[in-house]
């Protein structure tokens, strides 16, 4: 076990206050949504019954929160214990990402006061993909909290409870690997139901597999991004050697993804659609260019040793992978009948508020809970 300690330091920094303001603005809009309904706040309509609260906060958001999933997969399932220092920070982002995706779903559903029915087994609709996703995500949020509990228990010095939990933790770690595998692919399955409303550039029977692969790719990319970014901000030593090994896994996943993604569109004969100059074709080119750029950066072993190129590649993959998921849900989706969708100010503010809350909670945990492993530089604690 590594020696993990809180970073400590002052909480109320400039960025912290800015994020707090964003969060409070989000709370205000969310309150309006709960009091006056979806129509008062969002631009959702009969054609687009979901907006960025689902497409960004849930579909892209849970992919960004797959760090915990992929690190648990790598560390425990493939028994690569050398990655253990990266698990806790990754788990932490997963925890907030998933919990707040759940909050987003509550915001998004019209009659949110019926939401509790999802946990009543006699009201379950076992034929619904959405039910599977809801139960899976709900269960996973719970599992994440339990997986992360040792960190809190260490802080509280609850030794006996910690011992008991550590004995049972393997069950929850196993669940924490199984559940995202299920629902991350189901998020893709969901858009199979859109049928011809989804552009053929995205509509394929491979959607579940592609969504699972993007969960892995984005999950690893987010671990790299976050590790480098927070090391920089909090003056921690870089974890480059470990990260470049993660990059090897990304390369394999990404190659598989790109081959299926492009060849599937090509074999179905829809590749010309990517070059007709419409919004969907531009988005298709953009997302694939970003992913391809990430792949080309990471495929050379020398690049994987450079923190800067690692970071650039991770950024490309986060943008490209996120865009792939966003396009599948919003840009590539055309319900016909002249419907359009662009998020309203209220929707954007709520989404920003949720992101701000995630960052706030992450910062608080880094500074107050034993998340980061290894040496802590006493000099770097002032900010």
């Amino acid at each position, binding site marked *: 076990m590594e020696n993990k300690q809180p970073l400590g330091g002052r909480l109320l920094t400039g960025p912290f206050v800015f994020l707090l303001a964003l969060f409070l603005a989000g709370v205000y809009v969310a309150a309006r949504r709960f009091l006056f309904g979806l129509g008062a706040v969002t631009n959702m309509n009969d054609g687009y019954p979901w907006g960025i609260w689902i497409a960004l906060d849930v579909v892209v958001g849970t992919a960004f929160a797959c760090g915990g999933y992929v690190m648990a997969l790598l560390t425990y399932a493939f028994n690569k214990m050398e990655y253990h220092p990266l698990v806790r920070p990754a788990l932490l982002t997963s925890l907030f990402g998933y919990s707040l995706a759940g909050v987003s779903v509550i915001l998004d559903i019209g009659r949110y006061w019926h939401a509790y029915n999802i946990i009543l087994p006699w009201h379950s609709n076992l034929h619904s993909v959405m039910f599977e996703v809801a139960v899976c995500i709900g269960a996973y949020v719970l599992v994440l909290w339990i997986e992360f509990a040792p960190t809190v228990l260490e802080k509280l010095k609850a030794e006996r409870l910690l011992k008991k939990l550590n004995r049972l933790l393997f069950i929850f770690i196993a669940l924490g690997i199984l559940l995202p595998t299920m629902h991350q692919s189901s998020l893709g399955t969901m858009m199979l139901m859109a049928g011809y409303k989804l552009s053929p550039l995205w509509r394929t029977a491979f959607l579940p597999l592609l969504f699972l692969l993007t969960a892995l790719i984005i999950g690893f990319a987010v671990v790299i*991004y976050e590790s480098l970014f927070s090391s920089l901000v909090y003056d921690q030593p870089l974890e480059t050697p470990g990260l470049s090994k993660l990059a090897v896994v990304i390369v394999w996943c990404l190659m598989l993804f790109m081959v299926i993604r492009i060849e599937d569109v090509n074999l179905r004969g829809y590749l010309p659609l990517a070059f007709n100059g419409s919004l969907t074709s531009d988005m298709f080119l953009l997302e694939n260019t970003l992913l391809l750029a990430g792949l080309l950066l990471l495929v050379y072993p020398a690049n994987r040793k450079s923190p800067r190129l690692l970071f650039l590649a991770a950024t490309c993959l986060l943008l490209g992978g996120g865009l792939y998921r966003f396009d599948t849900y919003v840009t590539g989706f055309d319900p016909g009948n002249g419907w*359009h969708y662009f998020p*309203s100010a209220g929707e*954007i503010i709520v*989404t920003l508020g949720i992101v701000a809350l995630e960052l706030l909670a992450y910062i608080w945990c880094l500074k107050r809970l034993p998340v980061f492993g290894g040496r802590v530089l006493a000099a770097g604690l002032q900010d």
Partner: protein
Amino acid sequence: MTTDDFKGIKARLGDISRRDFMRYCSIMAGALGLSTGLAPRIAQAIADPKRRPPVIWLHGQECTGCTETLLRPSHPSLDSLILDIISLDYHETLCAGAGQQAEASLAQSMRENAGKYVLIIEGAIPVKDNGIYCKIGGKTFLSLVEEVAAQAGAIIAIGSCAAWGGIPSAHPNPTGATSAPEVLKGKTVVTLPGCPPNPYNLLSTVVHVLSFGKLPKLDSLGRPTFAYGRLIHENCERRPHFDAGRFAEKFGDEGHRLGYCLYKLGCKGPVTHANCPEIQFNDLGGGTWPVGTGHPCFGCAEKGVGFTIPMFTQVEVLSPTPFARQAPIIPERPVPVSPITAALAGGALGLAIGASAVALRKLKDSPDDPDHPVKED
């Protein structure tokens, strides 16, 4: 209505659930154009056996189609309800007895229920030569109608023959066939024209009388407005084709096969008042009425139209334009992007990319960076 109240109904009607019964009453309220909230009152009225009105049903110049249609509905237990809502004391087709026996029950019912019974007349009344062209039990139908109507509590003329003369009164009308309202001048006669009329219109009228103690609202021709207040054309399922100018030109042509408007084939829907398109026939749903099967309406329910204007002659359209402007099929929906939302979205994305760019600038290409030492494994 409580479960206890319902026990009596179940005993009388046999196999019917309380839920089915209440649903039946709600449908009845709907057919009458009333709030379904009145269903409990209707249920109460039907449930009370003491209020079953005695009914005397007379047949004149007709084909018994009205009686047949009344027995047709396949709605569960509807026939048994008809026989239980009312006390059918005399009906020449349905009487168990015959001859003297049957006539005796007519006389008995009239004597016992004077001023209370409901008289339902089916068929036209021949008045030429003192009505000798239709006799029952030695009496002319004309005198029978006058005699029974004199002490009736309510009079209903069912079918086009009784309501306005129907087919017996068609030119040259050798028997002087006349409608019930014309014979019974000065009396209120509810008319339910149609050939055959929809059985639910009779049922609904009777239930209305039972539930509220009075006749439903009638128009100047004695037709209940809940059933005859609108033209067939107004509620026709093919009306959108009419408004869009899509017509079947010939039987069997493409438009006819595609279910276009039948106006040019001589449909009388634009001049005929009836609720056929709404409730249709025989409880089969989906298109079980003439226009639904691809034949133009021939106006059986309207005096001066059915059996008068030739079947395939076009009529003048009384209400050529739809009530309201139609909604466009693909409406204009502007892209809901405002400068504020665009700025917010752009700003958020810019912030994320900007932060990444700053980090990118700070990070070094080489793994050996004195400012940010690499952690040893």
